[in-house]
């Protein structure tokens, strides 16, 4: 299928405002009379708050309000929790602090300098408690408890067998066993989370500007926290300076701004500083310990996988174990593995809690699986590429149901692998490896073949529960399309601009359906009072879902215009087609009407139109998940919940210095298959950006909590993210296997880079250090860890 605009490198519509300093981020929004907030945070990991004295802060000129946790609860409710267990959280701690950086008091003042001065004057008397830092120790019956409402720090544990695990292991010839360690990281968007709340005490209405998502998906969650009626809350999106999953709800931030707005009767902006964001963003990534086994037949066929996982969730459990629901979309990767045991224990400790970060829990899943495959290649004496190829699901086996019940729509994994091997110039790099080894230098060639599940359905959040608190099954996306009386095309999105390209994507789709220039399509953003159901960006879903929503709306309007044009030209609608923005007689293009001519009739000439046609041209189209099924009752089949599955093969080339532990990336090759590519440069940008975040995950990003529970990485000087100096030349190529489930065959591409790069780089470092007997099983591979591993192997 060839298209005129879909798949073409259309200029990015979002760029001009971003290039000229007029983006309209939350920090740019100014409202008359606005106050500024600052948050006092706990230096302790675990402590009882004996008392708080804010009298000096309140007396400071310019200070309008100070709220403690208890005082804030007079204005707002507790944080929403999607877990079934009693793990209560408030925006500001009340009796206890449970992680270093937890809010204990907030200030609103006429400017931020004064708010921070006042914060320094607040005195808190803490009774320091034993910190719960090590999740393994935290599981013991005698461990100090993070929450008194729970009997144990193990807030959730479940072990599920999918297929005949015992039987497959019994008939296996080889079992490869490895442990894996994936540390806590965070999204670290350059723009922190922020909200500006304005409250009208006379009507009880509140307006909140923020950089969140979900305002057109779960707006009632915000209303519940803010203590305002759902129909009196208006959530206005701002342009977002990056999220990578970390800003879906930003409940604390919205709640703090809202509480202060209610307490002062004035608009209040709370914009995290970098310490707030790192220490308390409530959206760190997984922090997992794996014990993993992969069973093989005598022929090197993968039979069964067992994963025993301890996941350190931190102090709260807001989204429950959704990160494992996510991982269960693809735990067996691109391979024909017949059965799976998934055993997960979620442990609470005194750390900032998990949320979502690009990969959303499937990232460590890819890491452990590909490390097992590399280990197996070594133990079985089979080339890694050959072992993978031997076990790939084949192109004629799709749609393919994996053991958990999720369905993969389509793919051609061998084609992706073969292309990666071709472009990676392996002959050169293998010769280089040999040459350098003779000099005592260590070059490594990595390989990873991984899935990127895209387009989630809400069931992933809850199906690990038998009795979930909110077993939702909708994950829709909407757009509103209008063609005005002069034929001008306007689209209103229900999602925010999170750094991706929703304006460009919908313009391409609308342009495709009408045959008009995408540059002429105007795009705006709805707020929560005007937008229809939209889950927004997340789970690499947006291009899939916007394509469906925009195409649906375009078809409705185009059909109506076709009927009106046909009536005007005294023809049957079946004989009229829309080509290049004109409605014309099929086979007789001389008989035609422009979009403007048809639109004017549609708007103002009801008597001239077919009976039953309403005036105007507007349609809101809500596109529901295109292919989702529910889990079964005993949870032996979770249903299809993440079925548009992209795939990639990455080959990084590294040099490792075993003396200093330094890893230098020399070159990076990636071949990606995300189905039909909507816009090639934009997809390539997503992949390259994800790969570089993956370099961070592989080499440097990690939360370091000290033994006393305090955080050692609370600024960008300690929590390191990749700079230009860490980034090699990255070569990206594509294979396109269209999805049979979606409009135009698109699949998602937002997370693919970061879902593959960490394990690919682990493979490369392992390959480099193989002569020294090192196998990489822990990320990030910091210089300290590499030096220690080399020493341990010696």
């Amino acid at each position: 299928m060839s298209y005129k605009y879909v798949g073409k490198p259309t200029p990015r519509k979002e760029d001009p405002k971003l290039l000229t300093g007029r983006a309209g981020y939350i920090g740019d929004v100014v409202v008359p009379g606005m106050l500024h907030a600052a948050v006092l945070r706990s230096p302790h990991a675990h402590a009882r708050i004996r008392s708080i004295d804010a009298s000096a802060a309140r007396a400071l000129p310019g200070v309008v309000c100070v709220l403690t946790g208890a005082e804030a609860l007079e204005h707002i409710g507790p944080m929403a929790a999607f877990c079934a267990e009693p793990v209560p959280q408030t925006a500001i701690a009340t009796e206890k602090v449970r992680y270093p950086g937890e809010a204990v008091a907030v200030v609103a003042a006429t400017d931020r300098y004064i708010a921070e001065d006042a914060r320094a004057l607040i005195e808190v008397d803490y009774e320091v408690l034993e910190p719960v830092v090590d999740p393994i120790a935290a599981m013991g019956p005698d461990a100090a408890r993070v929450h008194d409402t729970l009997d144990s720090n193990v807030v959730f544990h479940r072990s599920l067998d999918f297929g005949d695990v015992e039987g497959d292991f019994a008939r296996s010839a080889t079992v490869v066993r490895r442990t894996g360690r994936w540390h806590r990281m965070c999204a670290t968007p350059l723009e922190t989370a922020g909200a500006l709340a304005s409250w009208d005490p006379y009507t009880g209405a509140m307006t909140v500007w923020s950089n969140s998502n979900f305002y057109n998906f779960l707006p009632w969650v915000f209303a519940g926290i803010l203590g305002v009626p759902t129909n009196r809350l208006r959530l206005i999106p701002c342009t977002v300076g990056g999220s990578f999953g970390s800003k879906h709800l930003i409940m604390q931030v919205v709640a703090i701004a809202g509480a202060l707005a209610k307490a002062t009767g004035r608009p209040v902006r709370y914009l995290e500083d970098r310490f707030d964001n790192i220490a308390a963003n409530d959206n760190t990534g997984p922090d997992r310990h794996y014990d993993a086994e992969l069973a093989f037949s005598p022929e090197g066929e993968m039979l069964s996988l067992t994963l025993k996982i301890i996941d350190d969730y931190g102090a709260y459990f807001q989204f429950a174990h959704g990160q494992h629901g996510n991982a269960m979309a693809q735990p067996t990767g691109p391979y024909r593995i017949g059965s799976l045991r998934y055993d997960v224990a979620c442990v609470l400790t005194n750390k900032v809690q998990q949320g979502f970060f690009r990969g959303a829990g499937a990232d460590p899943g890819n890491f452990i699986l590909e490390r097992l495959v590399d280990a197996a290649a070594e133990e079985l004496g089979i080339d890694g590429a050959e072992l993978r190829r031997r076990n790939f699901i084949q192109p004629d086996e799709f749609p393919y149901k994996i053991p958990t019940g999720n369905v993969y729509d389509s793919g051609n994994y061998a084609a992706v692998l073969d292309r990666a091997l071709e472009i990676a110039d392996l002959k050169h790099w293998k010769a280089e490896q040999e040459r350098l080894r003779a000099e005592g230098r260590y070059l490594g060639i990595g390989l990873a073949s991984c899935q990127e599940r895209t387009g989630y359905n809400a069931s992933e959040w809850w199906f690990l529960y038998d009795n979930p608190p909110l077993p939702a099954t909708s994950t829709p996306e909407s757009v509103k399309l209008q063609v005005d009386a002069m034929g001008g095309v306007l689209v209103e999105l229900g999602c925010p601009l999170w750094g991706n390209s929703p304006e460009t994507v919908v313009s391409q789709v609308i342009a495709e359906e009408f045959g008009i220039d995408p540059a002429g399509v105007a795009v705006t953003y709805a707020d929560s009072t005007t937008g229809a159901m939209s889950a927004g960006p997340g789970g690499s879903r947006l291009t899939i879902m916007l394509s469906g929503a925009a195409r649906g709306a375009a078809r409705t309007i185009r059909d109506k215009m076709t009927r009106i044009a046909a009536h005007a030209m005294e023809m049957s609608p079946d004989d009229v087609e829309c080509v290049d923005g004109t409605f014309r007689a099929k086979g007789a293009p001389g008989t035609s009407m422009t979009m403007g001519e048809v639109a004017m009739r549609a708007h103002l000439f009801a008597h001239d139109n077919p009976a039953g046609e309403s005036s105007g041209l507007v349609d809101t189209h809500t596109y529901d998940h295109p292919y989702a099924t529910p889990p079964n009752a005993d949870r032996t089949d979770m249903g299809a919940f993440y079925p548009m599955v992209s795939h990639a093969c990455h080959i990084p080339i590294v040099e490792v210095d075993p003396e200093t532990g330094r890893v230098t990336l020399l070159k990076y090759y990636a071949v990606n298959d995300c189905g039909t590519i909507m816009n090639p440069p934009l997809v390539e940008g997503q992949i390259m950006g994800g790969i570089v975040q993956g370099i961070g995950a592989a080499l440097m990003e990690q939360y370091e909590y000290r033994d006393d529970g305090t955080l050692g990485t609370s600024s960008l000087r300690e929590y390191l993210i990749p700079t230009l100096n860490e980034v090699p030349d990255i070569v990206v190529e594509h294979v396109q296997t269209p999805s049979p489930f979606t409009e135009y065959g698109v699949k998602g591409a937002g997370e693919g880079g970061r879902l593959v790069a960490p394990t690919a780089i682990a493979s490369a470092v392992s390959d480099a250090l193989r002569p020294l007997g090192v196998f990489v099983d822990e990320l990030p591979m910091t210089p300290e860890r590499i030096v220690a591993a080399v020493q341990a192997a010696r």
Partner: protein
Amino acid sequence: MPDKIRIAVTVNGTAHDVLVEPRTLLLDFLRDQLALTGAHAGCEQGACGACTVLVDGEPTRACLMFAAQLDGAEVTTVESLAGPDGTLHPVQRAFTENHGLQCGFCTPGMLLAACALLERNPHPEPSDVREALSGNLCRCTGYQNIVRSVVAAGAEV
């Protein structure tokens, strides 16, 4: 609070004679007093470069300088680059043509660092760009297209 300090500063060609508090950062002065929101607060510790502006032509972190230090200085922000009719500066055009931005939060700082580089080296090699922009963090693009953008802008100049 010490007395306010009077400064004469030129920002994007416009002369300002203003009183500032001694502790007001250049970044907050630009954003709050002049409503120039193109320089962004990413870390306020000098680590990320999102607040980069040009002070007397030199890339400067606006979060690490006080407005009071600006007496007699000339400041250039991203708002000065495009023409009033919307014509993009060649560096801005190169960024959009090479997809050198995604969320845009680091972009003004990158653009100004690039302008300063191109001023002293109109035809930089990729290695020159890497050197000149290595103090500016980007979390979206993976940098490769930023380097391409600046090299392309140089080719155009």
